[in-house]
Structure formats: structure tokens, C-alpha cells
């Protein structure tokens, strides 16, 4: 099976989530993996370690802002060039927007939010997270070409190959309207660990009583090398920016460790975090529903517990 993987890079380095997509592709394809890169990236030969034979590299400044429609054209053109039976990519703001367009262009079947390798003994069945993490749907995909977007942290990164990949220049043709959406400005946080990419997350809710008390959450996150997050009421009250809101209508996260401070655990919040590997809940109300979904719980006031946790981490050399 020939598999194309769309790779994203930030600051010239391939994103960890793209390495997850490569790991997935290598396992499902038994070795026939081509990567497509449209971002500036260094060391692409090293993708051989993840089972990639060939890297198709598009060097075009017009793609630097990742215009969705043009990226979709590039992915479809690369898939046709290599005769791909499947296109695998990790979920991101670009991939989520481009995948359905690629699906229509290639007359391919799209499955998003995939959390496990396909079962192929009776057709082609993939497991997807649905109902905002409250269920999984094993979904049979018809059609000759499948497009899979992989949920973050569902697969993990594994080196599956050896040797260097061959890097080839690739120049796709674009559609007449591929650059119809013009990027006029980008405002990004600087320096922080981005929440959707984070492996550790420290999150806080109304129990913090006000935005002025977030220093201790930020300090805890800094000690752990974690991203900070918040519950919906907190972002609704503008205590924290919207892009930190996790939950059913916010960002869904699946880190290795999710620490929730002063969040009671409404079902909509749980929906956004219940794919986390380990959940720690700190709440002064011992009846808080979040404790039922936690691995570890601490009953206590955030203003007492968080500094103590900070001290315990520092004592342990973290």
C-alpha cells in the first residue's frame, strides 16, 4: 500500500505530530511511505528513520502562510504523483481545513480524528473519536483512496526505518482560486508551549477566583514544561484568552498529564480532556464530579495545594 504523509514543520523542524502520522503510515503501509513538505524544514533526509523513502519538498513562498486551498491542491497532486492508496496527516488547523478538500479532489473517502491503526481483515475499518471523546466509532471506509487525519497523541512516535530518505523538489499546479483567501495578519503567542501540541497541561477554573491569581498556575506549568489551559467560564469572563479554553466547544487535548485546578468537571469540560493519559484533579470540594474521572485527586484549596505541589516538584528535581 502506497501512503502519502503530509508533514508540517515549525521553526524549520518537523512537528512531533507529523512524526506520529509517519509512525502510523509506516505501520499501515509495510514500508511504502512518501512524505510531502510544504513548510521550510531542515534535515528531511532524517525522515528515513521513520520509514520514509522519498520526501517531496515544495519550496514556494506563496505557501508560507499555509493557504488551505493551495495546500489541498499540493497534497492531491502529490498523492496522484505517487499513486497513493492513502493519505495520512496529523490533525492541525491546516490539516482539518485541507483534508475535506483533498477528499473531494481525489474522490477519496475521508475519516477524521482517527485513534488507531486500520483493521483490514473485513474491508478497511478505522476507529474514530466521536461525541467529543465520549465514544469511539469503528468506521468502514469504501473507495480506492482513503484520507485519514490522526488525533494527537493517539499513536505515539516510533522510529520504524533506517537510512536516509531521498529529498526531491516538487512543484504542484494550483487551482485558479487557490489563493482567494488572503492572510492579512497573524497574531501568535510567543515563547509559550502551544496547548494543542503540549504533552503536559496545567489547567485552572473558577476556583482561582480571578485572573490575577494565574501566576501560580503559570509557575507550575513552567516547572513542568507544560502548557496552560482553562475552563469555559474562565475564558467567557476574559480571565484567560479563548485559545486556552479546553472542553466540548473549545480545544480538545490529549496530553500525557492533565492537571486540573479548581475545575469541578462539567460533562462538557470532561469531553475536551478525557483522552488525556493521566488526570490529576485538585479541588476543595470533595464531591466535585471531576474526581470520578481522575487518576489522582487532592482535596484542598488551590491556594494551599498548588504552592505545595510546586515545592514537591522542585524538591524532586523537576
Amino acid at each position, binding site marked *: 500500500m502506497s501512503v502519502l504523509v503530509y508533514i508540517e514543520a515549525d521553526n524549520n523542524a518537523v512537528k512531533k505530530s507529523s512524526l506520529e502520522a509517519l509512525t502510523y503510515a509506516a505501520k499501515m503501509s509495510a514500508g511504502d511511505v512518501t512524505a510531502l513538505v510544504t513548510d521550510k524544514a531542515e534535515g528531511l533526509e532524517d525522515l528515513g528513520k521513520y520509514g520514509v523513502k522519498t520526501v517531496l519538498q515544495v519550496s514556494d513562498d506563496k505557501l508560507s502562510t499555509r493557504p488551505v486551498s493551495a495546500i489541498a491542491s499540493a497534497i492531491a497532486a502529490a498523492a496522484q504523483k505517487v499513486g497513493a492508496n492513502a493519505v495520512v496527516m496529523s490533525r492541525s488547523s491546516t490539516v482539518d481545513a485541507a483534508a475535506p478538500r483533498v477528499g473531494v479532489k481525489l474522490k477519496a473517502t475521508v475519516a477524521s480524528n482517527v485513534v488507531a491503526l486500520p483493521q483490514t481483515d473485513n474491508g478497511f475499518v478505522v476507529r474514530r473519536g466521536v461525541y467529543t471523546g465520549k465514544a469511539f466509532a469503528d468506521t468502514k471506509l469504501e473507495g480506492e483512496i482513503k484520507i485519514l487525519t490522526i488525533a494527537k497523541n493517539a499513536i505515539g512516535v516510533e522510529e520504524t526505518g533506517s537510512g536516509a530518505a531521498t529529498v526531491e523538489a516538487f512543484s504542484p499546479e494550483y487551482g485558479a482560486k487557490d489563493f482567494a483567501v488572503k492572510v492579512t495578519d497573524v497574531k501568535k503567542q510567543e515563547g509559550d508551549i502551544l496547548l494543542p501540541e503540549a504533552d503536559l497541561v496545567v489547567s485552572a477554573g473558577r476556583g482561582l477566583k480571578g485572573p490575577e491569581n494565574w501566576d501560580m498556575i503559570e509557575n507550575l506549568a513552567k516547572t513542568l514544561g507544560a502548557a496552560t489551559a482553562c475552563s469555559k467560564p474562565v475564558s467567557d469572563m476574559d480571565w484567560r484568552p479563548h485559545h486556552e479554553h479546553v472542553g*466540548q466547544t473549545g480545544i480538545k487535548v490529549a496530553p500525557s498529564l492533565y492537571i486540573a485546578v479548581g475545575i469541578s468537571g462539567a460533562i462538557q469540560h470532561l469531553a475536551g480532556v478525557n483522552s488525556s493519559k493521566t488526570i490529576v484533579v485538585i479541588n476543595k470540594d470533595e464531591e466535585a464530579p471531576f474526581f470520578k474521572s481522575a487518576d489522582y485527586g487532592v482535596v484542598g484549596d488551590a491556594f494551599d495545594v498548588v504552592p505545595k505541589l510546586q515545592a514537591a516538584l522542585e524538591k524532586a528535581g523537576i
Partner: protein
Amino acid sequence: MNILVCICHVPDTTTKIKFNGTELDKNGVQFIIGPYDDYALARAVELKDASGGKLTVLNVGEADTEPTIRKALAIGADNAVRINAHPKDAYFVAEQIAAYAKDKNFDMILMGREASDYNGGQVHGMVAEMLDMPCVAPCMTLEVNGNVAKMGREIEGGKEYVECEMPFVAGCQEPIAEWKIPNMRGIMMARKKPLEVIEPTTESAPTEVVNYELPAERGNVKMIDADNLDELVRLLKEEAKVL
């Protein structure tokens, strides 16, 4: 302005999900307008109120979705269309929307960034590709100036601001507008507004759910004394192996 808003009919966000085989157990489940679609609808009502025009709401669904469609009419849509079919998958739904919209000269087609049941987030992109239109998702702000729409889009760790000419498709999310709650006058007027039912153009759906499963329950929570957080750190290192 001629606006189409596509809405889905999904379980309320507080619903505990259960299944009967490959069907959702609808017992005791309240259905609502998809929460993200509700944001799209709210912004469309604001745009129509500001500059006039017509707002059509569309749902691909069977007769049981009509109370949800009536709610959208009560919030401010002028007329509604129900495409009479079970919404089998994203491609099927996108085909119905594109077939309906292709000759109606909509200036914009708005919907939520994803449905809160299947979370696929595919329909807006598919509709846009089928109609050869630009698409912006997830769209957090939307302003219109003449023939140009300016939108803010969420990206990793920030926002991207874009613009494009109409017509376009957008998959919306908060904080694009405040949700609107229908008032009594709106509810009364909604009863008289037209709700057209049309049949689907195709029956094909390339995906089929063959099994549902609920996530494994977490084991019992281990409670740690607030005065012994060294123990929590030890467990996170040695037992959970996440530090």
C-alpha cells in the same frame, strides 16, 4: 445579502452517550441545534439585521429534526429547507448542501466548525470544494465590507486574519457572536415561516459505522493527602510515568 446557514440536530452537550447496537440510544436525549452551528446562525442573524437580505436555514435530516429547524426560524432565519434524509456521513451531507446551493446565489454559506456528534469537521470544506468556493474554518470573527469578508481564524497558539471575496463558505465557532435565545414573538412567527421539504439527490455514503464503543472507565481515583504531595510527585514519576 443572501445567506445560507446549515444546521445539524445533535444531542444536548450534557448527554451521557449510550448505544443500541449501531444506533444512538435516543431515550431521554434532548436534541439541539449543533452548538457551533448556533454561533454561525447568530452571526448570520446579526449580518442580516445590519444590511438586510434573506437568511435560509438548511438541515439534512428526517422529520424528527423539524422542532430544531423551527428553533432556528424563531432565532431569526426567514425560511427553512429540510433535505429529507438520514445524514449518513459528511460526504453525503455535503453533496446535499452543494446540490441545493449551487444555483441559489448565496453570498455566504455558514455552518459550525464541526458537528458535536461526529466531530468530523469536513462538511464545510467539502461543500466549498464541490462549489469551487473559498472556505475559512474555524472562523471566530466575520465582518463584511462591500463584497469582501474579513475573518479571524484560530490557528495553533493564536489567530490568523484573512479576507476573501464573496461567495464563500465558513465553519464557525465562538466567539463569532453571542448565542441568541428565541423570544415569544420569534417562536410565534416561526410557526408561520415556510419550511420546504425536498428529497436528497443521491443515496451514496462512502463511510459506515460498524460498531460503537465507549471509552474504558478510569480506575478508581487515588486520593492523595494535601500535606503529602511528595507522594503525588512519586506516583506521577513511578506509577503513571508521566514526569
